[in-house]
């Protein structure tokens, strides 16, 4: 049955409607307002930052496995450099990899396409958002090379250590780090406004709330969650910057300030932040599973409702990061209750995703492998969080490698597995060629298997009492004997890093390939697959913008000759 889609047209806007007919290199690549180009800018930047963050991990894990020995490609790792490496590894991975890749890159690319619009509602603010983001990325990298070195107070930047250059010895780096983070926040606030308003207003005619793909819901809910949680931290960051540079005493107990105030401000944002990055990743996973299981979602509305419930509840759990920080011990009881309760909607969300597999016809393409491994891996991250959310057990496990392993078992599925799932799924649409499936599968296994061998040893180390942010465990007699676990983790990391070369090779080959990708290689229902790969400027001809007749998950509808039913096909 023929789809009522547009014929591929080179220039969809005619000569004068947008004035983009002859775009010079500068306007097309650097100064573009096209959401697809901006998406790519975010994507390449975040991939670059991921490489930087990954190499930082290589260096500090080499120090941990072989303490005091020169790391190939870096040299000896001093305690100060170790602290700067772990601080910036964490900051970069969260703020300059996970957020831009999952939200800014894929949000920018997919939202207009999936809702049948020709761009975001504010293309110039979109461009400005990326430019601010780029400046923040340059700043965070620059901060590593200033006098004193990169900031070494952990990504959580607790004062008084972070507030006083005499304590942290990286005063300039600390302030530049803080400004970089603040600018990143501004970029995402602006971007978020664009996403939210675009979804609210610019949907294709006929697209009702429950016809919106889950990916779009998740990115927009995440944007709202980010916006409403980051404000107090921005206020707190201004206060910290003033402590650092103007010698105010907001966080100085000697002058009436309170270091724990920062912790509250940070984690009031910090906890919602993990859901800010989780929701988009889960959105991709859900859409990919629907496509490759050829199945309607088991509970589309439940998925949206539990996402909203999780987002709301996430405002009430923050102090589980501070159980033993010196807060009133009675408060810990409140937060342990809220923290354990938040596991309920997330568990339901995961159950509903797993239930979607029932009755399906599952194709194990590379994107599907990534999406499925997200579920399997995130489950481990999620359940290990319970040990930390229970106040009594957190007494022992706080600040140990158990925490580290828990959050890598959540962040890695979110950022890396979710990132590769999105990348391999939408690559044909974005770039117009196909990635090689065999190389894709080799890369997949070469990533997820070593990953287990990095972090399962770390759970063991944590249970054994090993604390975080320490550059050499040979100083602790009780921990020295666990060195084989540390070496295992490091070697596994090196193997995983090497397998990423397979990904880059695959990418390089495909980008240079002359073979064109079809419009809808995966036979999916959503609107982005109804326009050429890659879509032209404006996505569809202005007089042929799509209309929507049904939801996005009408797969395997009985009594039809195809097992998919695009949203824009009239009944």
């Amino acid at each position, binding site marked *: 049955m023929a789809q009522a889609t547009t014929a591929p047209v080179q220039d969809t806007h005619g000569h004068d409607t947008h004035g983009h007919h002859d775009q010079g290199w500068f306007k097309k690549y650097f100064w573009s307002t096209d959401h697809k180009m901006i998406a790519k800018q975010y994507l390449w930047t975040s991939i670059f930052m991921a490489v930087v963050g990954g190499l930082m991990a290589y260096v500090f894990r080499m120090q941990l496995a072989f303490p005091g020995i020169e790391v190939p490609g870096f040299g000896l790792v*001093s305690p100060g450099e*170790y*602290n700067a490496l772990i601080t910036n590894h964490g900051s970069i991975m969260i703020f300059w990899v996970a957020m831009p890749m999952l939200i800014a890159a894929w949000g920018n690319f997919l939202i207009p396409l999936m809702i049948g619009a020709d761009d975001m509602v504010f293309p110039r603010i979109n461009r400005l958002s990326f430019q601010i983001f780029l400046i923040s990325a340059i700043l965070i990298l620059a901060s590593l090379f200033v006098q004193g070195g990169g900031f070494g107070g*952990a990504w959580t930047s*607790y*004062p008084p*250590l972070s507030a*006083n250059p005499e*304590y942290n*010895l990286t005063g300039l780096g600390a302030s530049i780090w803080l400004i970089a983070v603040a600018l990143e926040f501004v970029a995402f606030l602006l971007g978020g406004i664009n996403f939210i308003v675009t979804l609210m207003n610019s949907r294709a005619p006929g697209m009702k709330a429950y016809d919106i793909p889950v990916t779009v819901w998740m990115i927009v809910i995440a944007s709202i969650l980010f916006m409403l949680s980051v404000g107090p931290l921005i206020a707190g960051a201004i206060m910290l910057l003033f402590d650092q540079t103007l010698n105010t005493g907001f966080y100085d107990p*000697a002058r009436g300030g*309170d*270091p*724990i105030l920062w912790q509250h401000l940070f984690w009031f944002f910090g906890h919602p932040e993990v859901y800010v990055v989780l929701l988009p990743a889960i959105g991709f996973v859900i859409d990919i599973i629907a496509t490759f*299981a050829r*199945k*309607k979602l*088991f*509970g589309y509305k*439940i998925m949206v409702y539990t996402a909203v419930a999780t987002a709301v509840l996430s405002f009430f759990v923050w102090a589980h990061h501070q*159980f033993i920080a*010196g807060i009133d*011990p009675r408060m*810990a*009881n409140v937060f*342990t209750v809220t923290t354990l309760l938040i596991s*309920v909607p997330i*568990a339901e969300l995961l*159950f509903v995703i*797993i*239930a979607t*597999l029932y*009755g399906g016809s*599952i194709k194990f393409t590379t994107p599907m492998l990534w999406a*499925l491994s997200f579920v*399997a891996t995130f*489950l481990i991250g999620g*359940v290990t969080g319970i*040990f930390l959310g*229970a*106040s*009594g*057990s957190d*007494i*022992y496990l*706080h*600040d*140990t490698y158990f925490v580290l392993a828990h959050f890598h078992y959540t962040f890695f599925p979110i950022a890396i597995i979710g990132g590769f799932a999105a990348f391999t799924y939408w690559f044909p649409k974005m770039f117009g060629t196909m990635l090689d499936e065999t190389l894709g599968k080799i890369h997949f296994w070469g990533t997820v298997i070593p990953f287990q061998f990095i972090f399962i040893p770390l759970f063991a180390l944590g*249970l*054994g*009492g090993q*604390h975080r*942010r*320490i550059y050499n465990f040979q100083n602790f007699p*009780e*921990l020295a004997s666990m060195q084989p*676990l540390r070496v295992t983790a490091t070697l596994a990391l090196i193997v995983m890093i090497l397998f990423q070369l397979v990904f880059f090779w695959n990418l390089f080959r495909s980008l240079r390939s002359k073979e064109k990708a079809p419009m809808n290689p995966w036979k999916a229902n959503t609107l982005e697959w109804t326009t050429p790969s890659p879509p032209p400027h404006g996505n569809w001809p202005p007089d042929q913008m799509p209309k929507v007749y049904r939801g996005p998950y009408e*797969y395997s509808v*009985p009594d039809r000759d195809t*097992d998919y039913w695009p949203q824009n096909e009239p009944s």
Partner: protein
Amino acid sequence: MFERLAIQASSFAGDIDGLILLIAVLVGFWFIVAEGMFFWLIWRFRERPDQKSQYITGKEKHLKRWVTIPHALVLVCDVFIIIGAVRVWYDVKQHLPEPDTVIRVEGQQWAWVFQHPGPDNELDTGDDIWTTDDLYVEVDRTYHFRLSSRDVLHNFSVPAFRLKQDAVPGRTITGWFHATSTGTYDIQCAEICGIGHGVMAGRINIQDAETHASWMSENATTTAAQ
């Protein structure tokens, strides 16, 4: 290395370990069920030429049950865990038993300073014993520690006790422990405090009554405050 969990040198270490075990059992059960179901489903419903995918709306009651019942059971398990957690937390952090001895612990960049009350068992008297990085306590005795910091945040952590508490400048936070076996164990700083965070290793020396008494009399001549 799992024998570490067997090193329980304090009265509440067993309670904390018990809670960890409870969580491990409950959570482990759900984990196995969920992962098991997941892997079974992707095997059972892998693409096969003779098998078409089904159109399931999610409103089917007999299928919804498979989600709503586990969902409710998870909530029940959470309640058990909450009760366990609150109990342990109360015993360790909220309710401090009467102390036999009070000590002071101060973290600084980058060492631990301990003030022992000396043979008269009173702090801030002439026979107090000051040490750096080595803490000396008597087994089977209930101690309160008054914890603070000179500069940045530190954290007094004794894994063998399962004890951990942030040291906050400008505040004195009191905690307790009751050592149940003699030995020497690690003290780690559990809050990043600068470039020396990794070298703030301390040692807690748990002595029997006799040894401890002779240690005290040998060292109690220190009179000047630090």
